[in-house]
């Protein structure tokens, strides 16, 4: 069918609403430890013998409350996967190109997805040893651990 486009136009607008998100008691402890003590913490399920990061109240595998089992994780870890973001959208925290990686911290069983800096995108490789660099200004998010960089 032929479309009648004579009167058609596009109205530029936006969808904008204010939000306030709560990290919860558990999340707050995790973020405050990052922010104030430069400490990365995980939560351990003793039953499944696994240490998780980011924190969660219940182990998804065995559905037990693990929220009290905090363990300190190392500030160093290994890059196990990555991508180089080369497009620019407003939700991205860095100017492209930047590296988003999965980092397995010492003492953790689940890798953390985070930003990797201090290495040229063409030199980044799986298996690199990385260390945490903490933010100077608090953000009250995971970005209180600002990024990872090569050891």
């Amino acid at each position, binding site marked *: 069918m032929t479309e009648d486009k004579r009167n058609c136009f596009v109205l530029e607008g936006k969808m904008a609403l204010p939000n306030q998100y*709560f990290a919860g008691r558990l999340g707050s402890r995790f973020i405050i430890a990052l922010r104030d003590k430069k400490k990365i913490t995980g939560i351990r399920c003793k039953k499944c013998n696994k240490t998780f990061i980011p924190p969660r109240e219940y182990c998804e595998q065995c559905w037990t409350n693990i929220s009290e089992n905090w363990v300190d994780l190392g500030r160093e870890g290994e890059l196990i996967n990555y991508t180089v973001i080369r497009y620019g959208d407003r939700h991205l925290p860095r100017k492209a190109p930047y590296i988003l990686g999965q980092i397995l911290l010492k003492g953790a069983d689940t890798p953390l997805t985070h930003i990797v800096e201090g290495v040229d995108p063409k030199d980044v490789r799986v298996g690199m040893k990385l260390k945490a660099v903490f933010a100077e200004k608090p953000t009250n998010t995971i970005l209180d651990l600002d990024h990872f960089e090569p050891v």
Partner: protein
Amino acid sequence: MKKHQKNRNVAIIGIGQTIMSSHKEDQNQVEMVQEAVINALQDANLSINDIDCIVHGNMELFEMQFAPNLWHSLGTGSRGKDEYRITTGGTTGMTLVCAADNLVASGLYDTVLAIGMEKLQEGNTTGGITNMADPLWFRNIQTGALTGTAATEMINEFGEERAKRAAIKYRIMMDKHAVLNPRAHRRFGLEYEQAEELAATSPQLVGELRLIHMCSQSDGACAMILTSEEKAKKRTHKPPVWIRDHMQTHREETIPNLFGHVKPELTHHYCARKLYERNGITNPVEYFDVFEMYDPSAWWALEWLREFFLLKGDEHINMLERGDFDLDGKIPINPSGGVIASNPIGATAMLRPAEAALQIRGDAGAHQIKKEVKHALASGFGGTYWTTLMILEKDLNWQEVDND
């Protein structure tokens, strides 16, 4: 009208709620959802492994969380399970129960967990609701769900004094119910002696719709577990509550054409009429023992009681004045305190059948009504006057009754 015949009967066997509140800074969305899920599992004496399928719903633009069930899966326990995410605005909560009912009745799943949630503290409620209007036209005019038109119409029909007195009486009655419900959000301890003062001095929101008349904005979640007749009958933990039938009636997109010179038949009236017809219910006020109604404001509640009960003239006001809707009245309305007291939007319409089911089980605690509850009605409201109604039964005997 064609008779309604389910493929198999479905029972509610688990009900879980969080406390409704405007302050849940100590929980993130996942943790709040999980609290309701765990409460429902405990109520049903089941483990998460007994659940075959999850049905999740809320309104994305309140929390501004896209496809929230993906993140919430940590708390709903859906990893490895089937899941559906179904939303219909304000009616979402009850639509989820309808969907769970359909999924069990279909034979595809035996045990389904429905979860509705909202954390309104994390978003802007009125702005979020206003966002439902067309961006090209009307979004510039709509003010969330706030409207004084029901008040204007009732004042015109019943006189200013009687209408205002009725609205405030309904409101205080709801607070008296809410005070007895430890999970309700707003429990003020209002007294009927305050009626006149409240009606005159409560700040005006829109026309005669005052702050005191309007529902709350709450955080909270509600979860319900439904299972097949076969499985329900094998259980001894708590008595099952049967879902007899449900009906949903949506309406066209525009709101202004509800306010022309002639009023169309309201969806509430249409939905109730059709649902009673196909279930052979001729006198709803006599048939039902309790009604959990989605009452976003005292004015709407009053107007709608007439619609849902298919009443004429001022019968509904008479009933209110006589005390028929009180906790120990002829047909108690909202023993839970209703939406006026607690309104976590994505869960609100699920709280209606959940609370109605608690009444049937005799499990509602301090807000349990005195007489035996055999037949309960629950309603949901949303969109541009969308209605959902559900009939809950204590005994699995309506098929025989119908065949007479």
